[in-house]
């Protein structure tokens, strides 16, 4: 049953990533692909909140597995982030590739830290 919920949540998360990414790309004409950055940073914040909350209050059932592994795991993506950096580099944008990867990393880990702090309150 949990596995079915994880599958369902993972599917919803992936579709939400597509919608968010498309929405951001249509509005933000940034020099770097901002859609995936926004998806991964917001997903890291939410998983931080969830992890902090579960750590402080306990997991009623399989909330962490369904919402964390399923929904937010399906929502965020590492593979696309890697390919975007490769495309920037192959497009002759060495600085852009490094900036993209480091900005996503620093912002996501900072968001996760904030989430862990707030979720544990």
């Amino acid at each position, binding site marked *: 049953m949990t596995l079915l919920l994880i599958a369902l949540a993972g599917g919803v*998360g992936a579709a939400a*990533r597509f919608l968010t990414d*498309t929405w951001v790309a249509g509005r933000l004409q940034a020099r770097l692909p901002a859609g995936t950055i926004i998806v991964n940073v917001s997903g*890291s914040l939410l998983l931080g909140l969830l992890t902090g909350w579960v750590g402080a209050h306990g997991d009623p059932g399989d909330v962490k597995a369904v919402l964390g592994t399923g929904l937010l*795991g399906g929502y965020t993506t*590492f*593979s*696309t982030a890697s390919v975007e950096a490769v495309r920037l580099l192959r497009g002759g944008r060495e600085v852009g590739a490094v900036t993209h990867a480091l900005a996503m990393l620093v912002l996501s880990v900072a968001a996760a830290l904030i989430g*862990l702090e707030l979720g544990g309150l």
Partner: protein
Amino acid sequence: MSGASGGTDPDIDPQPPRRRPAWRGRTLLLIAAGGALGSVVRDRLGVAFPTPQGQWPWTIFWVNVTGAFVLGALLETLAVLGPDEGWRRRARLGVGTGVLGGYTTYSTFAVDTASLGRSDHLVLALGYALASIVLGFAAAYVATWAVGAAHRRVVLRRMEAAR
């Protein structure tokens, strides 16, 4: 620029076609089905190979690196096979955006890194974060390059055979 979609972000459609609700619904369903499969595989791997807290999260590390490799190979293969339409677009969205996007995860990677840092494993946190990013990048790069090189060899051989 060698991407099938022409843009840097392979997860979306470069110029979203006129939004017909049915078309959009099918696209979302395709991505969701792929995302469901990828998420379940990642969950099962996490259950089969659990990593204790305060240690290098090997399972997610390899999930992310292998996912980056396969996505790089997939997108370059689709790009050399033809334009981003029809079955190639469906493969990009279903397998790339869906399965591999669901299989890999950035949120768990970021929260694991943050947790390691918070529990005074700063060196481990920094090492894990940088190794993941660098190896994920290298995997996607090598896969993209290898498919492109193989394609160039095939084209060259065909031209020689035709002579």
